[in-house]
């Protein structure tokens, strides 16, 4: 398992190879990767890139906890998350999630689950740039406290 938060761009091959490097991962039948990239528009119109702020230490710990939770919920051989922060132009890579599993359903479901949870419960905040000004993106979750509840207490995880 690996988690990385950094301003640096990443290469697909490097992360795929890193995910599959572990012996049981290299033998798994299924590998799924998800890559999220900056869209050049939002509901109001075109945008000019984004800016991501994070909480060094807590963000990495939350991502690590998320991977552990995915491993309790699905039959995974290995999984990894890489998330970029800072100013990112349109179409840039933002986030990569990779999952290895004996069976493809687990690999697909785990990657999708990790992305859903990441979006609503990992300490990262997004600004969108447009016309030279940046605006914080409003959270979509109706109850953000509830959405993040799983991060409060590790004993509650994997229920």
């Amino acid at each position: 398992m690996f988690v990385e938060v950094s301003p640096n761009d990443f290469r697909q091959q490097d992360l795929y190879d890193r995910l599959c490097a572990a012996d049981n991962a290299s033998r798994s039948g299924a590998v799924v990767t998800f890559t999220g990239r900056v869209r050049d528009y939002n509901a109001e119109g075109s945008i000019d890139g984004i800016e991501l702020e994070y909480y060094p230490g807590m963000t990495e710990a939350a991502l690590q906890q998320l991977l552990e939770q995915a491993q309790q919920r699905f039959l995974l051989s290995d999984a990894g998350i890489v998330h970029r922060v800072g100013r990112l132009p349109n179409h840039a890579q933002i986030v990569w999630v990779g999952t290895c599993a004996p069976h493809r359903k687990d690999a697909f479901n785990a990657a999708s689950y990790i992305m859903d949870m990441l979006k609503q419960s990992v300490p990262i905040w997004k600004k969108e740039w447009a016309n030279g000004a940046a605006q914080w993106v409003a959270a979509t979750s109706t109850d953000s406290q509830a959405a993040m509840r799983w991060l409060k207490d590790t004993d509650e995880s994997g229920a």
Partner: protein
Amino acid sequence: MKVKFFAQIRELTGVEEIECDLPVPATIDGLREQLMARGANWQQALQTNVLCARNQTLCDGVTPVSADDEVAFFPPVTGG
């Protein structure tokens, strides 16, 4: 204790991190009240829609705090 602010809350308070005395009562809500007394911008920043973490773990308003804790206030997350 060390108190950190992120995103909108950081911008409204104008600070990333401050040192605070232990609040009375010594809870997250006590700390929040103490900070909101600093001025209108602090009140606006911490009034609604605020999440908090103690030692990098999400916590509630009633969570106790001690002098060597790291506390953080931030808005709902919007990452990924």
